[in-house]
């Protein structure tokens, strides 16, 4: 019985590796299915079998059916016990059993180190094999009981040779012939089981795909994660195997602003494509290609891109962006110079409003924008903000809505650039945590300290690097570009 697999009811389809479900068989066909107007709750009867919803394989193809839908492991146990590898293992155990009993009984009175008391004959055999006498090497005996060494030696000589249940030489010959015959009469490659469908078996199994048996599901472990410095538990999954939730879930995403990247010109091209395709036009591939190219990044052009920052905190934050020099991807300096993308990011800090419950937005929308002290003009809904900083229109804040701020930057792709347009960005944000410490409840040492903490809100600073990927440069031959220098 393999130990890293489910011992109960979970099985894997041998064909497509999806989980199998236990289903009842169909009731006998009356001939005309439509006459059954009686919509019964469950239309199925035993025998039950395993069924893969994805590739529609079922275990009835290999004659595995069950009388009850539960306790499948017990019902399959009979089959597994008659498998050649279990029979072989049983024979091995029987062969070694008298020897093991003898060696464990002689080992015990000699009081080998306490942890050597093995109740399992297999591990006892393993440890005695480890302590075996190797010619040429002095025997390591911490207790210097040479008497015991001699005893073990004597026992070992009595062990008869082990004869396997099946003679390997003859077995190979038999199955080899059958395999060749099978191959000769193959009609399609799908009839042969592929290697990764077969190699989980420890014994050589039949080559036919129709002989594949359902496998037990391999077990997976749930890990918990601790902070490397203070050892506090950050992630702790639930004990229950089926649930995917967490008992403790402290993730950075709850504290860091979420960033999403969009290319406005690509979105516009997509809209155009959708609109024209619903009209029934653009069936030709050339037209579709053109529209797709309109949304792509072409070398030698410059494109604006939008970064949307979503603030998960209950306090408003001020975000500042900076470009970091791309490194590691390019090997030589010349190539790096040529392929560097010229990125323009908004250099001033921009605020992102705090996260509030959704219903609060309906009532008072003006409160949000009271946080804006810069004097930037926003209209009542706060949608499109006029950029009063004197920068070009393309770089700066595009939109401020609820707790999301969209800023735009510009990327200039040089003509010789190829590959992915990626750049490293340093995001630093600060916020004032306005929540005063509840002075009576916390275990603050002195009352004066607690007062100071509640009076002066502290500024918190965080910064992190992230990689912004705008897409791949579409390599397109410009027909207008001729060979002239």
């Amino acid at each position, binding site marked *: 019985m393999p130990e890293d697999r489910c011992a109960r009811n979970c099985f894997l389809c041998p*064909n*497509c590796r999806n989980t199998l479900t236990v*289903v*009842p*068989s*169909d*009731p006998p*066909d009356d001939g005309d*299915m439509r006459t*059954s107007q009686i*919509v019964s709750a469950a*239309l*199925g009867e035993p025998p039950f*079998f395993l*069924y893969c919803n*994805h*590739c*529609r*394989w*079922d275990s*009835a*193809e290999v004659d595995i059916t069950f009388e009850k839908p539960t306790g499948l492991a017990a019902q399959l146990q009979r089959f597994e016990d008659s498998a050649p590898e279990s029979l072989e293992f049983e024979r091995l155990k029987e062969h070694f059993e008298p020897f093991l009993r003898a060696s464990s009984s002689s080992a015990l009175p000699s009081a080998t180190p306490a942890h050597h008391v093995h109740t399992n004959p297999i591990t006892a055999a393993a440890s005695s094999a480890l302590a075996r006498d190797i010619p040429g090497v002095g025997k390591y005996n911490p207790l210097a009981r040479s008497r015991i060494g001699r005893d073990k030696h004597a026992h070992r000589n009595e062990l008869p040779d082990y004869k396997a249940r099946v003679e390997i030489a003859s077995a190979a010959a038999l199955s080899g012939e059958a395999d060749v015959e099978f191959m000769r009469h193959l009609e399609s490659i*799908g009839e042969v089981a592929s290697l990764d469908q077969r190699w989980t078996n420890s014994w050589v199994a039949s080559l036919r795909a129709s002989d594949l048996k359902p496998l037990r599901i391999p077990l997976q472990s749930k890990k918990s994660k601790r902070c490397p410095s203070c050892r506090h538990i950050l992630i702790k999954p639930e004990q229950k195997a089926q649930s995917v939730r967490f008992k403790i879930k402290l993730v950075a995403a709850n504290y860091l602003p979420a960033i999403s990247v969009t290319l406005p010109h690509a979105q516009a091209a997509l809209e155009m494509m959708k609109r024209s395709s*619903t009209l*029934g036009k653009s*069936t030709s591939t050339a037209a579709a290609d053109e529209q797709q190219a309109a949304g792509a990044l072409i070398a030698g052009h410059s494109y604006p891109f939008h970064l949307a920052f979503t603030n998960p905190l209950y306090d408003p934050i001020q975000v500042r962006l900076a470009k970091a020099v791309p490194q590691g991807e390019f090997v030589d300096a010349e190539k790096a110079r040529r392929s560097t993308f010229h990125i323009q990011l908004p250099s001033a800090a921009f605020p992102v409003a705090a996260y509030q419950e959704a219903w609060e937005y309906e009532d008072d929308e003006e409160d949000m924008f009271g946080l804006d002290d810069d004097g930037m003009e926003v209209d009542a809904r706060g949608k499109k903000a006029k950029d009063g900083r004197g920068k070009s229109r393309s770089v700066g804040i595009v939109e401020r809505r609820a707790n999301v701020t969209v800023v735009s930057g510009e990327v200039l792709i040089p003509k010789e650039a190829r590959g992915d347009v990626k750049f490293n960005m340093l995001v630093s944000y600060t916020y004032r945590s306005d929540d005063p410490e509840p002075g009576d409840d916390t275990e603050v040492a002195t009352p004066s300290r607690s007062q100071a903490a509640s009076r002066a809100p502290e500024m918190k600073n965080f910064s992190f690097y992230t990689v912004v990927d705008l897409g791949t440069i579409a390599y397109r031959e410009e027909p207008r570009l001729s060979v002239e220098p």
Partner: protein
Amino acid sequence: MPPIRDKFTIHSKAVVCQDVELKGDITIGAGTIVHPKATIFAIAGPIVIGSGCIIEEGAIIVNRRKEVMRIGDDNLFEIGCRVECPTIGNCNTVCTRARVHHTVRMSSYCVIGAGVLVVPTEDEMLDEYTVIYGPAGERRRWSGRGKVQEMDLRRKHGDYLRDMLPKFNRLRRGDGT
């Protein structure tokens, strides 16, 4: 290109929501359910859909050939699929986001798995009980075990939708032509 003349023949027992994009000569049989945001385009030739079919949201059924596109009974077209087959039999399932080319003809009890692209270069007829699955579009033959239960489930699915959809969506009635 001649203008597409719309002619919808919708059975009185069929449930077709208002928000469906219909174009061309379309016939919809009894008991068929077309969810909102589905698209049925009979651009070049007419489309005839049988009874008991379920066409879910985002499904696109297009006929770009002059011949009639016939779809049989009790088929299920899941969300986001795109089907252009000239002939479809009964009790087939085209799973979510699958795409079937116009060179393929489906018989009955076929299953096109989720996300699979069936785009053979030559005309092909899928045998009954063919299952196409996996990212590479592997094929195998289903033994047919469980088909009675599956059809029963589909009928129950259809019955439930026939009760529920009209409560929350406006229905589109046939032209009466």
